[in-house]
Structures are given as structure tokens and as C-alpha cells.
């Protein structure tokens, strides 16, 4: 039986909501202040929290932020129930970490349906999210993202989605030969869930789904961080594998990506200075709430190709020595971005990426 915690300082309303939810088969606890709500949430670990915003001790937005910041309560679904009905209020609630914003006065039927829908979505295990990091442009991160996603879609038969978060000039769509007129950045506001996102997902003939980067000038293609976090949450709730291409400079996206990803692939080439990489890794690890599962991946260069792969092998050893992490894959250099999994399935690059995809599925199975 799912546990629901109702936090509202209006006791009669709390009792009424409790009755609606108990009649629908939920186990309900209640709290009549923000402070009491936070204490009860950590004690009983509810599956879902119905949260008022206007409360005298701590307002609901702050309660929501604290619930999300505490690992014991961070995964609970949160429905904000409030008389603050303006668009800015909904935005505030979603930004604070709420999943849904329901306005007062409300119908018991709508509230129960909302709770049921959210809990059903949570019952589905979240997809395995892999983020491809690069420290500079031109190392083949987009090629790796696209082909890893293709390999996962083809080889596992599971739902795989490539998300292009290189929001200015992303190339995943170009590699796959697919383009969207409008992107999610322009019209998806975070509260429409998968229904609102579906029109922006493109399906490749391999079965891979792709969420392309917007075709917008850079200053217009910067969605708020909370909207990106919500986007990834929705895509993970739907897709078994989510592979994300990221810009070299993560900026505000860093915390969102590192908090939510199951695996980070750090793409390095022999031209990267390992001391800098070491420093970057230390910074990344310091900002991550939990130890990251980080796999270095070494990619080749034209010069390395001339040396018949010896440079990559030498660099791989250096990476393992300096970073203290095993290299997950060595990818041979490839001229220009190509969907090699479908266009050159017999190539060494395709074989290396398929082997990496197998490791990713193994890691997903372990974490499940």
C-alpha cells in the first residue's frame, strides 16, 4: 500500500484530503506545519507528499526544496496543492522540485487521479541515464552519444533515447539525418509530462528515439535548470536508456546532470592534458552528492591512427595510472561524425561502441 503524507496547516482540509486518499486505498499520514511535515517525511519515507504552499512557519516551496535535498525524501513524488494559481506559482513549485501543481479549490476525484497517476509513473523503474562528458570540443562526444544510443536500441531492443543537450548547435540530429521544426525548449513547460514531450521526440528507423537540440540562437536556447531536470526525469520515466550529449562547458547543467545520471562517460583523447583532467574530475566529484560511476573512454586522433593505435594504448595506460580508473573503451579515430552502427556496422569503431554498449547494459542490470 502506498504511503501518502499530507502537509497543510488547515487541519479540516488535511482531514478531508486524508479521507479522499484513504478511500482510494492509500495509507495516509498528515502534518499541519512545514516543520512537522519535514520531520514526518524523514521518519515515514512517504511515496508521495501532498503539500500546501501558504503555511506560516516554512512555506511549501522551502519544504519542497528541503525534501529534494535530503536523500531520505528526495525520491518522493510531490503534489503541490495551493490557492496560489498564477503561472509564476506553478513555475515556482516545479522549480522547487514538485512534480505537479494542483490549485484550490480542487475536486477530490482530480486529486486522487493525480496521485494515482504519479505513483503509477514512479512504479516504473527509471531508465539508465548515461551522460557523455568532454572537456573540449572535437573529441567525438556526439559520435559516441549517437552510436552508443543506436547500439543500445538495436542490440537490446529496449527503449533508448538520445538527448542532445548541446543546446546551441547540437549535432545528434544531423548525424541521424533528422530535424525538428520546433524543439522542447520553445514549448515544453515541464508540467505536461510525456504527453507534452512526445511531439518533440523523433524516431529513427533503428528504433532509437531522439530529442534534438533547438535550432535557435544561443541566447534563446537556454532553458532554466529546473526545466532540464524535469525533462530528464520525464524521459527516464519512459525510456530504458537515456544517452545525453553535453557541451564542453556544462555551466548550470552540471549539477542536474551529475545528480541524475547513473553513469558518466568521460571522453578523453591523447591531446588532453591529464593533470587538467585530474583537477576537473576532483571538482566534479566534489560537487556530486554521491560518488559518481565514472568511466573514462579514450578516443583516437588522426596522429594516433598513423601510429597504428600505439598512441591510444599508451594514453590508456597513462589515464589509468593518473586517474586511478579503468578505461572502459578505446575508440579508434573516425573522420567526421557518422552513425557507424548503422552505416558501417563492421567497422572497428562500431565494434568498440557495441562492446561499450554491452558494458552499459551490464552496469544497468547490476544497478537494477
Amino acid at each position, binding site marked *: 500500500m502506498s504511503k501518502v503524507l499530507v502537509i497543510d496547516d488547515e487541519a479540516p482540509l488535511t482531514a478531508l484530503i486524508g479521507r479522499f486518499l484513504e478511500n482510494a486505498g492509500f495509507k495516509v499520514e498528515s502534518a499541519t506545519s512545514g516543520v512537522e511535515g519535514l520531520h514526518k517525511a524523514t521518519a515515514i519515507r512517504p511515496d508521495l507528499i501532498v503539500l500546501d504552499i*501558504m503555511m506560516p512557519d516554512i*512555506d511549501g*516551496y522551502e519544504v519542497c526544496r528541503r525534501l529534494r535535498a535530503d536523500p531520505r525524501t528526495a525520491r518522493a513524488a510531490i503534489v503541490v496543492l495551493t490557492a*496560489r494559481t*498564477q503561472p*509564476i506559482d506553478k513555475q515556482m513549485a516545479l522549480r522547487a522540485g514538485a512534480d505537479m501543481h494542483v490549485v484550490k479549490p480542487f475536486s477530490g476525484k482530480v486529486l486522487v487521479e493525480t496521485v494515482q497517476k504519479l505513483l503509477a509513473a514512479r512504479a516504473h523503474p527509471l531508465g539508465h541515464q548515461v551522460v557523455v562528458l568532454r572537456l573540449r570540443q572535437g573529441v567525438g562526444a556526439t559520435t559516441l552519444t549517437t552510436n552508443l544510443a543506436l547500439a543500445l536500441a538495436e542490440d537490446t531492443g529496449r527503449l533508448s533515447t538520445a538527448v542532445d543537450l548541446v543546446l546551441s548547435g547540437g549535432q545528434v540530429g544531423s548525424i541521424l539525418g533528422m530535424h525538428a521544426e520546433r524543439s522542447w525548449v520553445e514549448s515544453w513547460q515541464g508540467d505536461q509530462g510525456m504527453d507534452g514531450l512526445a511531439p518533440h521526440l523523433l524516431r529513427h528507423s533503428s528504433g532509437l528515439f531522439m530529442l534534438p537540440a533547438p535550432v535557435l540562437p544561443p541566447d534563446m536556447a537556454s532553458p532554466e535548470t529546473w526545466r532540464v531536470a524535469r525533462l530528464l526525469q520525464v524521459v527516464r520515466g519512459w525510456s530504458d536508456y537515456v544517452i545525453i550529449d553535453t557541451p564542453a562547458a556544462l555551466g548550470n547543467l552540471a549539477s542536474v546532470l551529475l545528480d541524475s545520471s547513473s553513469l558518466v562517460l568521460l571522453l578523453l583523447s591523447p591531446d588532453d592534458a591529464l593533470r587538467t583532467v585530474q583537477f576537473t574530475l576532483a571538482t566534479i566529484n566534489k560537487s556530486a552528492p554521491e560518488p559518481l560511476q565514472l568511466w573514462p573512454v579514450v578516443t583516437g586522433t588522426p596522429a594516433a591512427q598513423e601510429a597504428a593505435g600505439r598512441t591510444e594504448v599508451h594514453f590508456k595506460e597513462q589515464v589509468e595510472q593518473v586517474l586511478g580508473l579503468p578505461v572502459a573503451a578505446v575508440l579508434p579515430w573516425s573522420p567526421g561524425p557518422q552513425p557507424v552502427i548503422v552505416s558501417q556496422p563492421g567497422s572497428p569503431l562500431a565494434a568498440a561502441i557495441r562492446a561499450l554498449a554491452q558494458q552499459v547494459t551490464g552496469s544497468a542490470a547490476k544497478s537494477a
Partner: protein
Amino acid sequence: MSSVQYGRVAQADFFTTTHRISGQVNTGPKPLSDMLNDRSLSYVMAVNVYVSRLSEPGEIVAHMPVAYLSKQNLSFVIVAAREARQAERTRFSAQEYRAVITLPAFEITGKFLGPLRVDMQVFSPASLDPFVLVTEATAQIVALPEVTFGGEVILVNGSRLESFGLSE
């Protein structure tokens, strides 16, 4: 929000040139618009009041169990339709116009129910109730035009008007 309530309680968003004030008003048997238009009252008493600054209109910066709101300093009030007494549709007030209103710090657009034919030589906002009723209305903060407030009804303080434009 907690309160002991007797009689009719209206939830409303009150806007001044600097703040957004959300609260509940006990209006007795009448809609809130009657209380706002009652020239014998200078203040409205609200309970469970939550205050936001217009610069961050979603953030709550203060809570007060009770607050008195000076009617003359309110720019406008957003309420549910039931909290506004609608003008009766007679042959003298039967035409819906598109209204564009500017106030210090705000722009408001919506629908205004006025006379069948507005003669601008005769018609004046001064002839209306102190709080002018605009339906299907949207208010924008001039300094933050991306932030909009909407509601079934916006009651605009006539004494704060900078301009009041009507078009068919």
C-alpha cells in the same frame, strides 16, 4: 492556510505598485467587489496573508495572520468571477469591449462590459465604480513583462488609472 472563518470567505491576490499580497477576506453575504466599491470603507481586512515582492512575485517573503490593506493604494485585485458583481446586461450596458489599461508598474488587458455605443465625449472611467471590472484579464508587470497574472476577473482601482482604452 489556517483560519477560523464565518460567512463568505474570498481568496484574492491584491497588487500594489511594489507587492503582491495573497489573502482571504471575509466578505459577509456579498461579493468582494462590493466591499472594494463601498466608499465608506478605506481598508479591507485580510487574514492568512502572504506577501511577495513584485521583483520576485512567486517567492513568499512574509506571512501575517491579519493585515489591513489600504484600498486607495491597491492597483488591482484578482478574484474568482463569483467575487465580482457583474454589470447587468441592459440595452445601456450590453457591449463587450477589449480594454487596455495602464497603471503604475502594470499593464492590464481584458474584456470590459460597457454601454452599447461608447461616446468618448461623454463616457469617462470616473463614472464607473471605484474598482473597474475587467473579465478574462491578464496583468503584466512592466519591469518583468514575461511574468503575467491572470484570472476570471481583475478589479482595477479607478483612482490608479494612467490610461483606459477601449476598442470593439
